[in-house]
């Protein structure tokens, strides 16, 4: 028992907090009637808020330290990078919970499991943020993913939701296979799964001598590539994002990408740092392919959720620039992810507002003339779309600027050129929705459901997008401090 307690439990404190909140939600759920279950949402908000407070306190404590705190025999680390990522996760979780209750009540899906799974998934990300071992990396990804497989199918009587769930599950399991096999190969090549030992291993020093090591890197990249929807492992993304319940899609778009990115950063820099000449060129090419594929694919989409899914693929490509840049690049990735998360949550929030019990504003045509009926919603949507397109002075512009300058200072000029060209292209499909909203006559009165919670989330997102665009320095200073 002393040994059990001797472990450094603080390193997983936020994750623990989330898991216990989730368990309480599950238990309390049993005593509640359907119409009372909305309280579980508020309780989950407390969970995310509490976890946020823990992380901020840890961050304040860790900030000045020279060597980061580790725990569980070096399997987990408590450093600023991981903590900042966790803040991002909890913020996204918080906002996603705000989006959910209205939707769930409307579809009579108000169940505690929803919130519990959201909490568990976020706990997985939280573990991922500090992972220092291939095993923890793997488990973190699984804890992140499996709740999402279930959540994707949560709108169960709806066939496309079930289909999304099954597709996501089957392909996700397939990707897990790659991940696991890669882990095994790396273990075989080096005899360890700890990042520190990996970094110091002979194989990492001369990776090209060791086929098993190279194959391990390849398979891990495939597995992680699936999670961040990197081309050519992205095909699941449009189908799943389209089919999943909208609040879940919002959460997935914003959070999974961040989770995948932190895993990638941890693996590549903490675990495979010395072998960077192996993965760097490969990832560069894949980044270029990803952003191009995503943008070109989005061009002709008529379903807005599907379009945003393709756009999220493109954004994964941009983010990889930051990952490849290292150093300042991480800051850029973090800020970009924050902006990207706020923007997407906002956009999906607007989509949520535009549906009632039956209708969902999925087709681009249902946005026709929205500005006439709901000028506020149309304005917000425009702001979010312009931010996604990287239009000044929205936050998206700043985020791209940060990413691209990081890329240039890391000598990735060619990739930045591709990225800028791509963001030019992307304006086309984002602008199409704005055109529909402002410049076409409505066919029918759009559906609309008021919700104070969604409105609150939208307000946070909108204020964030505008403020981060006009005055991003605060955030950047906080991060680099």
């Amino acid at each position, binding site marked *: 028992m002393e040994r059990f307690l001797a472990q450094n439990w603080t390193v997983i404190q936020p994750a623990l907090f989330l898991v216990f909140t989730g368990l309480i939600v599950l238990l309390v759920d049993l005593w509640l009637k359907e119409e009372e279950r909305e309280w579980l949402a508020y309780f989950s908000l407390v969970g995310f808020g509490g976890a946020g407070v823990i992380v901020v306190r840890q961050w304040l404590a860790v900030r000045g330290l020279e060597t980061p705190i580790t725990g569980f025999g070096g399997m987990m680390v408590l450093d600023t990078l991981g903590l900042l990522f966790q803040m991002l996760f909890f913020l996204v979780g918080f906002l996603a919970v705000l989006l959910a209750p209205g939707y769930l009540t409307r579809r009579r899906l108000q169940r505690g499991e929803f919130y519990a799974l959201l909490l568990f998934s976020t706990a997985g990300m939280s573990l991922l943020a500090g992972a220092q071992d291939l095993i923890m990396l793997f488990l973190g990804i699984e804890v992140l993913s499996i709740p999402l497989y279930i959540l994707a199918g949560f709108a169960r009587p709806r*066939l496309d939701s079930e*289909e999304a769930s*099954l*597709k996501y599950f*089957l*392909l996700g399991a397939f990707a897990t296979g*790659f991940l696991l096999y890669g882990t095994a190969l790396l273990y075989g090549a080096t005899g360890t799964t700890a990042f520190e030992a990996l970094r110091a291993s002979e194989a990492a020093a001369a990776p090209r001598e060791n*086929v098993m090591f*190279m*194959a391990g890197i*390849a*398979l891990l*990249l*495939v597995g992680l*590539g699936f999670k961040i929807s990197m*081309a*050519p*492992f992205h095909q*699941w993304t449009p*189908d799943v994002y*389209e089919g999943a319940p909208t609040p879940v899609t919002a959460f997935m778009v914003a959070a999974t990408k961040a989770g995948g990115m932190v895993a990638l950063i941890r693996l590549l820099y903490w675990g495979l740092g010395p072998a960077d000449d*192996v*993965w760097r060129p*490969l990832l560069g090419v894949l980044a270029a392919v990803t952003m191009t594929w995503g943008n*070109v*694919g*989005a*061009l*002709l*989409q*008529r*379903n807005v959720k*599907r379009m945003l899914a393709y756009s999220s693929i493109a954004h994964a490509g941009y983010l990889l620039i930051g990952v490849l840049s290292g150093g*300042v690049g991480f800051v850029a990735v973090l*800020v970009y992810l924050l902006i990207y998360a706020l923007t997407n949550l906002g956009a999906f929030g607007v989509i949520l507002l535009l549906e009632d019990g039956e209708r969902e504003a999925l087709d681009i045509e249902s946005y026709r003339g929205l500005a006439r009926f709901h000028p506020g919603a149309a304005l917000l949507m425009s702001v979010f779309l312009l931010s996604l397109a990287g239009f*000044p*002075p929205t936050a998206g*512009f*700043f985020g791209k*600027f*940060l990413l*691209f*300058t990081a890329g240039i200072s890391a000598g990735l000029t060619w990739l*930045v050129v591709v990225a*800028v*060209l791509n963001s*030019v292209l992307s*304006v*086309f499909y984002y*602008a199409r929705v704005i*055109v529909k909203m402002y*410049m*076409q*006559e409505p066919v029918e009165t759009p559906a609309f459901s008021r919700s104070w919670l969604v409105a609150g989330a939208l307000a946070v997102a909108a204020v964030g997008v505008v403020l981060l665009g*006009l*005055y*991003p*320095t605060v955030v*950047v200073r906080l991060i*680099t401090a």
Partner: protein
Amino acid sequence: METLLWALLLVPLAGAVVNVLLGRRLPRQVAGWLASGAVALAFLIGVMATLRLLALPAEERAYVTPTLYTWALAGRFEVPVSLLFDQLAAVMVLVVTGVGFLIHVYSVGYMAHEPADYDFRRYFVYLNLFVFSMLLLVLGSNFVLLYAGWELVGLCSYLLISFWYTEPQNAAAGRKAFVVNRVGDFAFALGIFLIWSAFGSVVYADVFEAVGGVAPATLTAITLLLFVGCTGKSAQLPLYVWLPDAMAGPTPVSALIHAATMVTAGVYLIARASALFAAATSTSAIVAWVGVLTALFAATIAIVQVDIKRVLAYSTISQLGYMFLGVGVGAYTAAIFHLVTHAFFKALLFLGAGSVMHAVEHGAHHAGEHVDPQDMRQMGGLWERARWTGITFLVGAAALAGLPLTSGFFSKDEILAGAFLEGHVLLYGVGLLTAFLTATYSFRQFFLVFAGEPRSEAARHAAESPRVMLVPLAVLAVLALGAGLVLGWPPEHGIIHTWLEPAFAVAREGTKAEGGAGLSPMTLLLISSVVALAGAGLAYGAYVRKAVDPAALSVRFRPLYVLLWNRYYVDELYALLFVRPFFGLARFLADVVDKLVIDGAVNGVATVTAGAHALARRLQAGYVRVYALSMVLGALLVLGYLVYWGR
């Protein structure tokens, strides 16, 4: 001064905000006057700021506001949010707010017939927003703020081009403008990134100071990228294609955005970065040649157009070409001078064209006839029916043609003289030829519209426009007529020269001494006068005296005429080269590669079929397997690269 500048920038924005918030409760006329008032106030503030600048010694006339806050701070990257007010900015501010105010006033009359209050308000909100964005572009103290303004004016232009969006072609025109501009913006953004990586700063002062320490190749790359951005925004070859279509917007918008202000942003950018461009001689040569060729190219097209606004659109492209010729040969002051006079006379011409259309529409309404109010073939004889419009339009046409003593005469001649005196005789020759064509087409237009007998019932019943539209015309006519003489006489030593020269001192340092090729500036002035008069005379002979029959000419030179009539088939060429292959690729990636079937068909399946059975069938029908297969293929590629080729 600091407060003054921020107020200058924010007043139009406040106008837009107030109109958005309170517009519903205000009568529509009040909303219009509110917007105009905001711009008038901005103009007054601009004048005050300029006077303060005037009180300073000439070399200290550049004021940078203290940094409001620093935007972005990662690594070494910093963008201070501050404004720069110097001689160049002052000129631009006065043009933007001054001409902008007149156009706002004119719009109150022009848009009065807009049926919906909502649209009326929307129009003025966009217009105010545009003025704000343009001021941001002009006043920003660094390239990033300039870029922000640059993008915002593009957005406003896009919104205003598609203002009457119920017509599908208008929406398409707006989109075209937006997309083509993004191509230019792409290069511009890259240019800024390159500036940052070469200079470590994007602030004008820091960058221009360090020009000497940067490799010439880098400098050439930076300036070329910036210039590609200019060709988009300022409608030069090869990205000019959006501007003629942009005429779909309301006419005052064409006057303000697509003639007087926004399209000159490229010229402003090069003038602003004159220190960079002067050091990159090869880029400057390219700028000059692109400018002069665009001028010629657009002038030849303008000569056969029959749409009253399209003639003006091509003439704008052509005149912008002159300005680029000016900045290309180092005649920065002349280029900005032409920018100013062009803003006056082209705004005048557009507003005049709007007044003509207004008159013809009125006539068409009266005669119960359906005519295209922009088709000059349906006009004629309007001189009798819309006298004030006619007189002011004549002034505008004369200034555009460069008839002696009008404003266009001085500024255009100065650009040509600049080219000649710097030793670019060929550029001078092409420019002179273009000047001849310009005089021809501008008087062709005037005679087609105002001279002779009415060629339609609508023209016969045309009536003069209301006073709220005529007053701005009159003011602009006075400016178009007199600005040249007031600002630019004597040549090289006028008010505008003494005012602007210090701003370009750095750029002018290395240029050659004047009077290189043996002809004095006065002789050149004389040559220009003769050419302009000859062009105008040709038009008079062909369209009034009928000494030459244009119809017969068009038959005789049919291939050339068809080529010009179809605008060199450039739009078709672009569609063939870029648009179609691109959409083909998009369809291929999204539908074939990612989906294996058409998107819509698949989306339909979930709603049409129902039940778990169908679900199972779909899962087995292959998507999951295909996705998995493609994952395996991707994995094999990655694996193959790392394990086999990568070693």
